């Protein structure tokens, strides 16, 4: 079953891992879920770091797009997209096929994530 009006990312939201890392792409009987948002409010928007529970392990990730409509002129994606990240900010995967919003450049030092991204919106 799917929840109805899906908004930004908070605890227990199911997310979609978008890079080509092994942890994100191997099938598992439970979808990856957010368990903590590193934010003053518990609501994660584009550019926030979150903690995911994938395959029984904890992993940090970066939000690159969500279903919630943001400010005008910014893209809104049809799924909550997330890129797996290490503690020092290095991405785990080597390629990101899905489009990444340009707004992410404003949010923090994610130059390594942009280096592996292919498409931008």
């Amino acid at each position, binding site marked *: 079953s799917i929840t109805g009006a899906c908004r930004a990312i908070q605890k227990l939201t199911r997310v979609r891992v978008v890079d080509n890392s092994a942890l994100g792409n191997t099938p598992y009987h439970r979808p990856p879920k957010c368990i903590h948002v590193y934010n003053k409010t518990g609501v994660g928007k584009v550019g926030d770091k979150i903690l995911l529970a994938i395959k029984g392990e904890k992993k940090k990730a970066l939000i690159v797009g969500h279903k919630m409509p943001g400010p005008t*002129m910014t893209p*809104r994606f049809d799924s909550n997209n997330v890129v797996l990240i290490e503690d020092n900010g290095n991405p785990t995967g080597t390629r990101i096929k899905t489009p990444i919003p*340009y707004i992410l450049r404003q949010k923090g030092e994610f130059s390594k994530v942009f280096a592996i991204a292919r498409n931008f919106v």
Partner: protein
Amino acid sequence: RAISDGKPEKFQPPPKPVIIDKQKQREERRFLSPEFIPPRGRTDPLKFYIERKDMIQRRRVFNIPEFYVGHILAVTTADPYANEKTNRFVGICIQRGGKGLGATFVLRNVIEDQGVEICYELYNPRIQAIEVLKLEKRLDDNLMYLRDALPEYSTFDVNMKPVSRLEHEEVPVNKLQVRMKPKPWSKRWERPKYNIKGIKFELPESKMKAAQKWSQPWLEFDMMREYDTSKLEDKIWKEVSDGLKK
């Protein structure tokens, strides 16, 4: 020109040239953008007049083409974080909302199996160009159901060439019936409240009849909801066309 009979033929004057006055034809087809029409309410018309002046000012500098819901547009915006400081997005217009300077339109496209929608403001100074790539109206005013339709109906090539079109022709209506993903959908599109004609419902007859339970047939006869905009439109059209001609 060989004469078939021996007798000389009667002099036939050449056919009169048909003068197509393009000016007149363009004036006959007038399109007033829906954001110029003020909403019904008790606000002072002076506010709308001042807003219209600003909108005309912007339109004189930057050309906003005539477009409806269902057209495929390419919008280039100025973006400080993009590579060449410009960002080009191609998509189908699914909704036009807002009145006055805050008028918006939402473009949708599916890139690399990911559906992306961007809500652009028509009068935002960051927009550098709006090109209409394909003109076609659809059966509905609001194509939000494309989110629950199969992704092939929302995919459009980013490098699409603009389809040429004659000036004075009517905008063609595409009577496409879209096939949907299996239920559940984000909204119950089969209900008469949305009045959608562009979906090919493959639901059983019992479900369609059950949806008609929510119909409100008295709504179209409700006189308090009537908003006749014909006189307003004429006045505003004169104002806008005079403002743009200067």
